């Protein structure tokens, strides 16, 4: 079947001034019979900080995992006509161009395409057999091809930024959860990502460690122009850092808007219920 490549169709009604850095164009995602995302469309502008909120199972984390290519979209028969494609910086991420058609991306395409995306995970996922410094240099050297000296200089600079310059020779197991998460943030930033995905980065932390991690992320948001997609239950952080908040339920966007709008005056009953429940915790 012919699927002539066309420019991605406008997905959101917001009409961004710049070309979107991320575009979900009628994306489907199912796990077996469970439909997680249902023809989901939205755009994210370069430099924008978008927070995804919603109850468990609403599809927020799946969106980040699709962008990081840890999950793959449920393919449509005709991507050009039916959508089902994720675009990053104007190029297909979930698909690749073959002749004049879009076909589901292979591993080689994904490996190249995801280099501009970084992710910080809920459970840190540092490599426990490597010291802190090597956790931050490993991919710089072996993915980006930087020299060892260059990678170490960058790693030390970032570990200093996250307040862990004294821990470069420690193993992750010798650090607190908050420190491990800050190393993970440094590791993701070391790859100079255009897009940073933050997946409930404080959920696994003791309450007293949350502030340090959020502080580092606020600094990153203030001092860089990295586009961020954030899944969090830290509503204060979302309000401070985001340009836009999207409320999800059952794989669709229930409501979206500026943080003040969503947190102070939500229109939808579902958003009101969710925020009441979260803020009561």
């Amino acid at each position, binding site marked *: 079947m012919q699927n002539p490549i066309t420019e991605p169709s406008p997905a959101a009604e917001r009409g961004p001034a710049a070309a979107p850095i991320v575009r979900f164009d009628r994306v489907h995602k199912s796990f077996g019979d469970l439909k997680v995302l249902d023809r989901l469309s939205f755009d994210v502008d370069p430099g924008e900080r978008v927070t995804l909120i919603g109850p468990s199972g609403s599809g927020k984390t799946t969106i980040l995992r699709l962008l*990081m290519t840890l999950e793959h979209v449920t393919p449509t028969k005709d991507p050009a006509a039916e959508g089902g494609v994720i675009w990053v910086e104007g190029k297909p991420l979930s698909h690749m161009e073959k002749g004049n058609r879009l076909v589901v991306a292979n591993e080689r395409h994904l490996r190249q395409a995801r280099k501009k995306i970084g992710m910080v995970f809920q*459970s840190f*996922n540092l*490599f426990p*057999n490597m010291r802190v410094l090597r956790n931050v240099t490993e991919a710089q050297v072996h993915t980006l091809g930087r020299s060892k000296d260059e990678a170490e200089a960058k790693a030390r600079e970032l570990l200093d930024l996250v307040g862990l310059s004294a821990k470069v020779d420690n*193993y992750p197991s010798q650090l607190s959860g908050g420190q491990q998460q800050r190393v993970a943030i440094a590791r993701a930033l070391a790859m100079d990502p255009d897009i940073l995905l933050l997946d409930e980065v404080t959920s696994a932390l003791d309450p007293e460690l949350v502030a340090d991690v959020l502080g580092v992320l606020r600094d990153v948001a203030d001092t860089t122009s990295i586009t961020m997609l954030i899944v969090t239950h830290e509503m204060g952080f979302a309000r401070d850092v985001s340009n836009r908040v999207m409320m999800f339920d059952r794989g669709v966007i229930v409501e979206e808007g500026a943080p003040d709008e969503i947190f102070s005056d939500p229109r939808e009953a579902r958003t009101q219920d969710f925020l009441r429940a979260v803020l009561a915790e």
Partner: protein
Amino acid sequence: MNEWNSETALEILPAMWQGFLVVLQVTLVAGIIAVVLGLLVAVGQRVGPPWLGRGLSGVFQFVRNTPLLVQVLFVWTATSLYINPEWSAFAVGSAVLGVHYASYTSETYRAGIEAIPVGQWEAATALSLPAHRVWGAIVLPQMMRRSTAAVANWIIAMFKEVPTLFAIGVLEMIAQAQKYQGQHYDGAVEGYTIAGILFLAASYPVAVAARRLENRLAKSHY
């Protein structure tokens, strides 16, 4: 004739020592095969196409479920008749023993690989690390920490099975004792006793070292 005789023991000792050295040589060769082949199979089952994984799994299931002695005799006979009668019993026996124990070490490695949290694979993917670094720098070091003590125990078990190769004429300790007994109509008690003592003297310290290694690895930073 059936009682312990120290003079006979002293007389048979050099031959038993020769047999013991053969046991160590077989263990070394078969051990390398078991460690390397087991690892290749475990990794192959993970990264190869499904048919390869199923095929390797089926072959090793068969190997684990048939007696070592039958495998040794079958392969020795088959290679002598159909492949090359010049191949030595030492080489054939070591290979069979190594492959037999690779079927166990591969399962140990496989379990070690499967025990690595999925988050490690996901972090490696998120960083776009090439496959050789994912395996060489992340998966195998963590898997080895989990598997090394268990693999050492398989090698000790294999060491104690080397006398099986007596059946095809490898001159290990039991074969030496039998040879002496055939020539002198004496020395069975002394020969088997010395064999037992040498096996114990070699395997006990290794077992203790494996236990210590296990404890040390358990206390390591990852």
